[in-house]
């Protein structure tokens, strides 16, 4: 469900599967543990392999956004599939969370401090 990698002060999390009540808890724990353990400021969520997300899954994304924002960090997303984009869009999350086309672009923008929605 979750592959993690760090690039400098950026944590890259590749998610897989369907993000709902069943998987949300595990994902929240996995992300928070990584954010606790590494000295990272920013988080890239690669959602390319996430085929479904509901409001419970969205809660995990927004929760991480708030946690990072509190410490001056940023959350960005990439690889949005139509049903996931739909939910991020409807909820207004795409107005506060920047979206990138590639991991490279996301990481570079975060490093230059240029990632904004």
């Amino acid at each position, binding site marked *: 469900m979750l592959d993690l990698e760090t690039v400098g002060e950026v944590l890259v999390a590749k998610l897989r599967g*369907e993000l*709902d*009540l*069943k998987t949300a*808890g595990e994902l929240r724990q996995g992300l928070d543990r990584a954010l606790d353990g590494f000295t990272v400021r920013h988080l890239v969520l690669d959602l390319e392999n996430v085929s*479904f997300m*509901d*409001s*419970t899954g*969205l*809660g995990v994304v*927004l929760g991480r956004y708030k946690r990072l924002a509190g410490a001056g960090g940023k959350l960005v997303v990439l690889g949005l599939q*139509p*049903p996931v984009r*739909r*939910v991020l869009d*409807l*909820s207004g999350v795409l107005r506060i969370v920047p979206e990138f086309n590639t991991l490279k672009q996301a990481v570079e923008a975060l490093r230059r401090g240029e990632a904004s929605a």
Partner: protein
Amino acid sequence: MLNRFRLEFPSRAENVSLARVTVAALASQLDPTIEELDDIKGAVSEAVTNGIIHGFGASPEGTIVVEAVLYGDAIEIYVEDGGKGIKDVPKAMEPEFSSDPERLGLGFSFMQSFMDSVQVDSAPGRGTRVIMRKQFAPRH
């Protein structure tokens, strides 16, 4: 009425996807667009999650019932729990209202965005029944 089913299962987190899959399998019989199918899966996910989390307080001991009825160009979905119930339904349906600080309060908003109509019958101690309808776009 073209077809229908009634599905009963315990209030466990893994059954949110079970319900999605079964409703999607029925809806597929009308040859919907991918977007219509995604909308239906999203709405079912929200309603069933609410039954589990709010209706039964995340206990797996409750029972959720999902019924779906297919008409020529529409689907009606009923999601019912015999759980806690809702005191103030209009308030519960307001965007971003949640009784749980950990949650977003967007469940009912999503159901309303995804479906053509959403109706909620509920009373404290008497459980909750969500009735949703979606019309499919004409095609072929």
